[in-house]
């Protein structure tokens, strides 16, 4: 650092002798220097913008957006979520039932069909049989809730990617969005929708879905957080534009939340 060389003859002889090799700085110069160094820390105050109500919301939205952007780039289409042995699976009674409204929205299973629309060659109503003729995939995967708990469940169903080929979906579209019987709604990015472990799930623990777990059809997406695993599906749309992202996302949760 800059120091003042002071005439070595000035000052007491003893001091000069003792510390002849030591550099000196004038008291005033040091105070000025210290003040300047302190001022250089002012950029830290920029963080105060997060405390200003007017900026806070948009700054946090931007921060979450960066996290989602990075998450989408971290996602690897060929990378599988860990799968587990049957002995690791959480007992069915201990698999939590989470919903935003009611356990059972009263779907009339006999009349149920999935309304398919958007960027597809064959839109229309699809029955459960039309989903169940596709190859059945069963997987023991971890279900992670945004709250922090996790369970390992056994899920079975058709690959969403298989269903997307059946309906002639445009796989260059950006999103697959779904609506549910309880007014819940969700969306997946196309890369995740095409992932081999993403299922249109119609069974859990080798039995048909119970009403609380989303009968007759739900999403099982082991590469996504729990709130993306929508239940009681009624509509499926392939689209480039999302009017709404998802029930929780529109309250402020992460839009991508890939695990």
């Amino acid at each position, binding site marked *: 650092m800059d120091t003042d060389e002071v005439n070595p003859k000035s000052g007491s002889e003893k001091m000069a002798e003792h510390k002849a090799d030591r550099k000196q700085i004038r008291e005033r110069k040091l105070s000025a220097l210290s003040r300047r*160094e302190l001022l250089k*820390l002012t950029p830290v105050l920029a963080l105060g913008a997060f405390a200003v109500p007017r900026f806070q919301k948009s700054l946090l939205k931007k921060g979450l957006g960066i996290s989602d952007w990075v998450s989408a780039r971290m996602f690897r289409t060929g990378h599988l979520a*860990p799968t587990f042995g049957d002995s690791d699976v959480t007992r069915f009674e201990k698999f939590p039932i989470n919903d935003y409204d009611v356990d059972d929205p009263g779907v009339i299973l006999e009349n149920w069909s999935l309304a398919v629309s958007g960027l597809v060659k064959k839109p229309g109503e699809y029955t459960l049989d039309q989903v169940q003729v596709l190859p059945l995939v069963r997987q023991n995967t971890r279900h992670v809730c945004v709250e922090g708990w996790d369970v390992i469940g056994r899920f079975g169903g058709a690959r969403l990617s298989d269903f997307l080929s059946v309906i002639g979906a445009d796989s260059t579209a950006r999103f697959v969005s779904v609506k549910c019987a309880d007014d819940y709604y969700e969306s997946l990015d196309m890369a995740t929708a095409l992932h081999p472990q993403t299922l249109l799930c119609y069974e859990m623990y080798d039995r048909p879905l119970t009403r609380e777990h989303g009968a007759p059809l739900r999403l099982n997406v082991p590469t996504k957080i729990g709130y993306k695993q929508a239940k009681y599906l009624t509509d499926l749309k392939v689209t480039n534009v999302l009017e709404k992202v998802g029930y929780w996302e529109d309250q402020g949760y992460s839009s991508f939340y890939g*695990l």
Partner: protein
Amino acid sequence: MGSAVVEIVRVRGDETESIGRAAYEHPLIVRLCHWVNAIALFVMVGSGLQIFRAFPSFGAKIPQHDLLHWPKAFAIGGWLGGALQWHLTFMWIYMATGLIYLGYQLFSGNYRQVMFTHRDIPGAWPVVKHYFFRGPKPELGEAYNSLQKQAYTTVIILGVLSVLTGLAIWKPVQFSWLAWLMGGFHWARLWHFIVMWVMLGFVFGHLVMVILHGWNNFASMLTGWKKDPEY
């Protein structure tokens, strides 16, 4: 390796009077990283505890046994979604300051001032005796004594662990090997929590020592200049 010490002099006409000594201990980049990281850590802990409030347990969801009820007043974000926004925003600031700091320390060689090595082991016991058993104060030939180096080195390692455990919770699929190393997602979450408390232990000790060691020490992290260093 201590910083160069200079003599502070007061000049009156031809007379030069020595009134103390000073050393430039903390370059600007270290001070910036220190304060930005301190704020980021504060936000990460506050929002992290709000996230923890959503499931204050490390056991099963059914039946749920809560570990502790953390008061909302001592948390940031107001609700789970808000807390996640804070957490997933400030983690970038937290990591950026950590990386800039580590990069600077490595490339400048400044890490020698802080890093605890085997050479610091013999000096540790006299400092412990001084701090806790009223032993004589050991002479200090550099910026930090061996216990300080041990504490600062440990907290850097904890900082790295906080990021790695957090990554394992945030991305247990993409970083499945990391989660596996920690015993799976479930354990990674517990490690993340433990690392936070150990870091808070450091922060507590750090603040106590700053208060005990007075203004000069505190001011040096603001201006870079430490007045009247012991060496």
